[in-house]
């Protein structure tokens, strides 16, 4: 079995597939896309042409980290693992987009799959549609010369471009946190009262803030103006109830022009269901 090519990070079949869809002899290459028809048409309206479905995957073994039973603490090694695995998948997807010579990737979806052959390993997947701009007068790539990435739908992408913004990159921050068990005394003293549980409040609050600030840091280093469509996802994966991953993910955007005026939208009431 051929191992992953260390320079590109892609399996050989991926390179071959992507090369097959390249332009040849003045004819545009075949594009593949998981965009719906609506999204495809709106991406075209926005002045982009889909180039191909791009994909990145990483199977990662997530080890165990010792934790204090009662202690609220971030599990740094796990945070690092969850982040690195996603980053690997994203980077491979970006490489695929780069091979296609595209300007960016829209409709990125990140997912985590667990298979029954490995309890503590998971597959991290990034999938999206690589697009190239029809006009070459705007630079769509990031300042590092990489294709932009975005988890926005085709509709949102069109609307964003209409409003004079460009997506810059999919940014994320994660934090795997151990929420400490409470002592018997604490449980007893509150069991009959309506009371805030400061121990838990503080744990969940801190974990979310950590994830969000890491995401913001990523956006700042990209030179973004802001982040749209942030989602905060919480999952325990296979860790049981007291270890939670908080994932913040969104699309960092930059302005294309100083004003963001759009055509006045019509107000409608649809009688549709």
């Amino acid at each position, binding site marked *: 079995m051929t191992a992953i090519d260390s320079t590109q990070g892609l399996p050989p079949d991926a390179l071959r597939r992507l090369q097959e869809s390249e332009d040849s002899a003045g004819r545009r290459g075949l594009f593949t896309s998981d965009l719906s028809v609506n999204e495809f048409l709106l991406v075209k309206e926005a002045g982009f042409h889909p180039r191909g479905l791009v994909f990145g995957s990483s199977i990662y073994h997530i080890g165990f980290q010792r934790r204090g039973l009662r202690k609220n603490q971030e599990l740094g090694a796990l945070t690092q693992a969850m982040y690195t695995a996603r980053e690997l998948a994203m980077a491979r997807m970006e490489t695929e987009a780069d091979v296609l010579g595209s300007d960016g990737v829209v409709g990125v979806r990140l997912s985590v799959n667990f298979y029954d052959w490995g309890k503590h390993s998971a597959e991290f997947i990034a999938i999206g549609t690589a697009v190239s701009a029809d006009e070459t007068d705007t630079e769509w790539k990031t300042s590092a010369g990489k294709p932009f990435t975005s988890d926005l739908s085709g*509709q949102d992408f069109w609307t964003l471009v209409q409003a004079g913004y460009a997506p810059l990159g999919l940014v994320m921050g994660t934090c795997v946190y151990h929420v400490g068990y409470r002592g018997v005394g604490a449980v007893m003293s509150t069991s009959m009262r309506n009371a805030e549980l400061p121990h838990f409040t503080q744990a969940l609050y801190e974990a979310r803030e950590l994830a969000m600030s890491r995401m913001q840091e990523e956006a700042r280093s990209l030179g973004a103006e802001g982040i749209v469509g942030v989602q905060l996802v919480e999952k325990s994966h296979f860790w049981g109830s007291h270890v939670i991953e908080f994932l913040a993910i969104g699309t960092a955007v930059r302005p294309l022009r100083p004003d963001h005026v759009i055509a006045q939208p019509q107000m409608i009431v649809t009688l549709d269901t």
Partner: protein
Amino acid sequence: MSGPPPPPSSSERSGETASAGDLPEAARSRLTEAAGPGGTWTSDLSVSELSAVERCGFTPAGMVVGMTVYQFGLQGYGSQYQMSGGIGSGMGGQLYMTPGWAGGYQQTYVCQHATYGHMPGYNFEDLWYERGLTEAYTIAIDRLREEADLLGAHGVVGVRYQSQRLPLASSAPVIEIRMVGTAIRREGSPLLSEPFTSHLSGQQFAKLIDTGWVPGAMVVGVGAIRSYGGCVVGDGTSSGASAFNQYASGEFRQRSDAIQHCRRFAVDRLETHATGYGERVVGVDVAAQFHSTMEDTMLVENVMLGTAVRRFRHIEEPQPARVTVGLADVSR
């Protein structure tokens, strides 16, 4: 392949089921009250549906129900569909029925193994079951109409339907079919001999009328085929013959045929049924069910339900739909 039998009309129905005027007393009094002076209408239309229906010049007349609890008799002994074949015996002593159901589709798949005369596989159309299912749906639709008629309505829109097998103590399977919709009325227009019925929502009804179509009736098409596997079915444990099949691969033609024919029959009957009501059928629900009754046998069952629509006006240059992007949050 034989031609599909037409769905039973109300005159040739079995037993003492729905002839006109067999609604329960509670239904009669509810509907008469609602239709009488000072009556109020009830409706499960949403506000959007209500305004769509009203825009077309109709008003709600009341909610109507059509239902039936129906038993499928034991495979037709003593009926005209009784088997004309006989019971045979295969290798290993299993009993099997030889094909010979009167009138329906049937096909035999003889054993391909060179020297063994194994039990043949065969497909046959279960006319008895098909007829039962068709009748049950027709009864429910007829009762919807009857209730609408009592309300002085011209039709029923937004019919939702459900069918379920009832866990009743009975030697034969019993199903319940339930339909609920809203009867609508056109003020000042004489009653129709048969109110229309439709499973389309209020908005879809309005769009139909706008584009020159009117619903005629809910129509149903049923197909049911039993497929008894011969020596090609099985996993090598159930009968001596199927030890050969461990290693067989390729298309299982007998089962493919069963599904293909079953769907074809359901579509054909749906279209035959609809021909009395309109030129098109829209919104056909194509749910198919597969039951494995035993290891080697399968019952393929298809009930297709749709609304037959009729053109009343030809629009030469239809307005093209506008393309809009909503600035609303629609999840991807």
